[in-house]
């Protein structure tokens, strides 16, 4: 294989591994804040002792999940700041004036905000006042979201560049407002924040279903599952709407990406929606098509006979059809599954008076099976976005092949193997440790006598 494809695979491996963890920590930061506030409310004078203990248990357990996810996000994030230089030396040379400040702001305002206050949030309870601790939790949650803002601004600029000018091959900023709020940015930001909410929601639902099946965490699991299902039920229709809008935005600015997603080779009016097909990039046709007539035109142009441009109109400038076609269908499929699960699950849980123990076991197993469904959908969605930008690194302007590193293939291959081994081992460990932590009986989370100092007293300071 040539150095370009190996470099891309290496970067893709790293960025795939990385995005798993911010996707959890962006949403979970706010959920922790929510658990915290519920606990404060329940433990206030005249509050419900049992509820207070439940929320505190939930806060403690999910803080550990947050710490673990955050650590994995930090270490894989560090890798990325290096791989810009090792894999794509030409990228910063050409667009450094634009990408530099955006990356810089991500590191400066967000990364530090998170990492600095995280120590206090995780270990500082009892050492600082309740108010300072709550504020630290706020800053961490805010920091993760701000992080997403800056990095998505850069990613969106690479998809739909605007607000720049080119002098002697070097990109300069003409308007920061246009660079940051480029055409696809609002859609991508909303889509990603909702993806994070949904990933967290199903993580909450899945793990608390697992805990219910195992008969542990009886105080916190019902509360956590209710929060998760409610969040999922609210977020998924919003996500489907935003996703549709994002698709229309892509059709306007990156028609080649949509052509690959829909498996459309020749420009046509009244294009069918392909439920299944195997697009063949060699023969430039689809095999085994299963289609609903005119539906793609209806969805994308809101007109039965609307025109959809085919990939043959973008010779040498369209992404490979096969990965996009499938990644898109995986994302949408999981989205629909999430809609069905969260709405029916919410309704059934309500009928069971919010006690997961009253739910049928097959449903609990179903929830548990969907614990990491958000990950799969998020990664599939990112593959559509990122592979869909190829063969460009900055859409329509700079080709990936022109900025790649000059390292020999063998060196890139060796380090690629190293990274992949490490990442696979870490994902297995992460899931294993989460399962182990979830199965530990709730009593293990109880304060042991003698360390009262480090344990909140239940009285807001």
């Amino acid at each position, binding site marked *: 294989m040539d150095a370009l494809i190996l470099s891309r695979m290496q970067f893709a491996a790293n960025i795939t591994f990385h995005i798993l963890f911010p996707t959890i920590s962006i949403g979970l930061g706010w959920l922790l804040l929510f658990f915290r506030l519920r606990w404060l409310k329940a433990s206030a004078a005249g509050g419900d002792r049992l509820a207070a203990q439940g929320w505190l248990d939930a806060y*403690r357990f999910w803080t*550990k999940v947050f*710490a*673990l996810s955050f*650590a*994995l996000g*930090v*270490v*894989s994030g*560090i*890798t990325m*700041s*290096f791989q*810009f*230089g*090792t894999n794509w*030396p030409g990228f*910063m*040379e050409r667009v*450094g*004036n*634009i*990408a*530099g*400040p955006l*990356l*810089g*702001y991500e*590191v*400066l*305002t967000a*990364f*530090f905000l998170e*990492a*600095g*206050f*995280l*120590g*206090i949030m*995780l*270990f*500082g309870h*009892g*050492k600082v006042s309740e108010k300072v601790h709550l504020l630290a939790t706020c800053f961490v949650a805010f920091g993760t979201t701000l992080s997403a803002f800056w990095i998505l601004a850069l990613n969106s600029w690479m998809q739909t560049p605007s607000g720049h000018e080119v002098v002697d091959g*070097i990109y*300069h*900023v003409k308007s920061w407002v246009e660079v940051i709020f480029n055409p696809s940015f609002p859609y991508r930001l909303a889509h990603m924040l909702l993806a994070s909410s949904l990933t967290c929601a199903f993580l909450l639902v899945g793990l608390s279903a697992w805990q219910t099946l195992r008969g542990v965490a009886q105080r916190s699991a019902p509360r956590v599952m209710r929060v998760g299902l409610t969040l999922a039920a609210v977020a998924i229709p919003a996500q489907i709407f935003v996703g549709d809008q994002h698709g229309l935005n892509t059709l306007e600015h990156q028609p080649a990406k949509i052509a690959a997603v829909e498996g459309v080779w020749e420009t046509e009016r009244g294009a069918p929606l392909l439920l299944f097909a195997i697009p063949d990039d060699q023969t430039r046709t689809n095999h085994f098509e299963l289609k609903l007539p005119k539906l793609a035109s209806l969805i994308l142009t809101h007109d039965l006979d609307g025109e959809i441009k085919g990939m043959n109109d973008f010779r040498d400038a369209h992404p490979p059809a096969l990965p996009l076609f499938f990644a898109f269908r995986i994302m949408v499929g999981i989205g629909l599954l999430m809609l069905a699960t969260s709405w029916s699950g919410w309704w059934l849980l309500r009928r069971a008076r919010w006690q997961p123990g009253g739910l049928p076991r097959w449903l609990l197993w179903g929830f548990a099976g969907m614990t990491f469904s958000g990950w799969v959908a998020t990664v599939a969605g990112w593959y559509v976005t990122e592979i869909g930008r190829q063969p460009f690194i900055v859409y329509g302007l700079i080709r990936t092949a022109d900025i790649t*590193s000059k*390292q020999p293939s063998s*060196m890139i291959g060796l*380090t690629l193997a*190293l*990274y992949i081994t*490490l990442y696979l081992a*870490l994902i297995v460990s992460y899931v*294993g440790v989460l399962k*182990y932590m979830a199965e530990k009986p709730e009593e293990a989370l109880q304060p042991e006598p003698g*360390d009262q100092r*480090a*344990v909140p007293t239940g009285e807001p300071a």
Partner: protein
Amino acid sequence: MNWMSFDEALPVIFMALMGLSMLIYVVSDGYDLGVGMLMHRATDAEKDVLVASIGPFWDANETWLVLGVGILLIAFPKAHGLVLGELYLPVALMLVGLTLRGVAFDFRVKARDSHKQTWDRLFFAGSTLASVSQGWMLGRYVSGFGSGWNYPLFAAAIAIALPMAYVMMGATWLVMKTDGELQRRAVQWAKIAWLPMVVGLVLISMATPWISATVRGRWFSLPEFIALLAIPLMTGVALLAARALLNTRAVLGPLAWLPFVLLILVFLLGFLGLAYSIYPYVVIDQLTIWQAASSPAALKVILIGVCISVPAIAAYTVFSYRVFRGKTGELKYA
């Protein structure tokens, strides 16, 4: 002498910021990498204390590396490509090391007890791999990525010396943060690491001017030589004082903080010496900071963010160290 214009001064400002980040990184992650490399010498109970002593700090420490490399990436994009291209393999190994130790740190307390030992070993291995890679990279960088038999040898020597310096930092950190039996053992560890660290420092100081004519010219010409003599002299005094202190009883009591502080001073002096050798190059004898810098317009935008956030970062770093000051207790999520 003419004052340079603001646009011309911008790369200098960013070089200073990058240097500062790297210095803070080396000192702060230095002690926690050092603690990681001491893991295998500690008993199981002590291991928990070792980890607890760096728990609230390590990830904030590592973000200084991200800031340092980030500035290299965003302010000196040409140098970023050149430097990281030259250091491709050690960078990958360092990242694997940092990843392993970062996650081992979190996994060890959460995994089942039978797996704890494996994570402890990975914590040790990751810390060592990261430190050795950093030493190699430092060696390659200060010698301008030259080729010839002497260059890899030099880099290999630094790849041993820098981890030793980190171990020394880690040991003196533990002297400061712990008490009782562990503190006495930490004093012993510090004594062991002292000599290799000093040899490494001497080696860098001798080899850098030997390898690069530019550096030789800057140090060994009068009258600069006399003025600069202060740097090696003060370094020597600080190192000897730290070593002597380790033999006294006061190091277990009121002066427990002093060896650590003296070592920070050594790192600071070493950094100043290195900065004097290299400036105004980003890559010695190859690329000056002005050749490598982004456009002044982009640098100004970044500078605004820096002016807002760096004081904030400094303030809460101080706050965080205050909250977790004193001897290390049990670390619990709460």
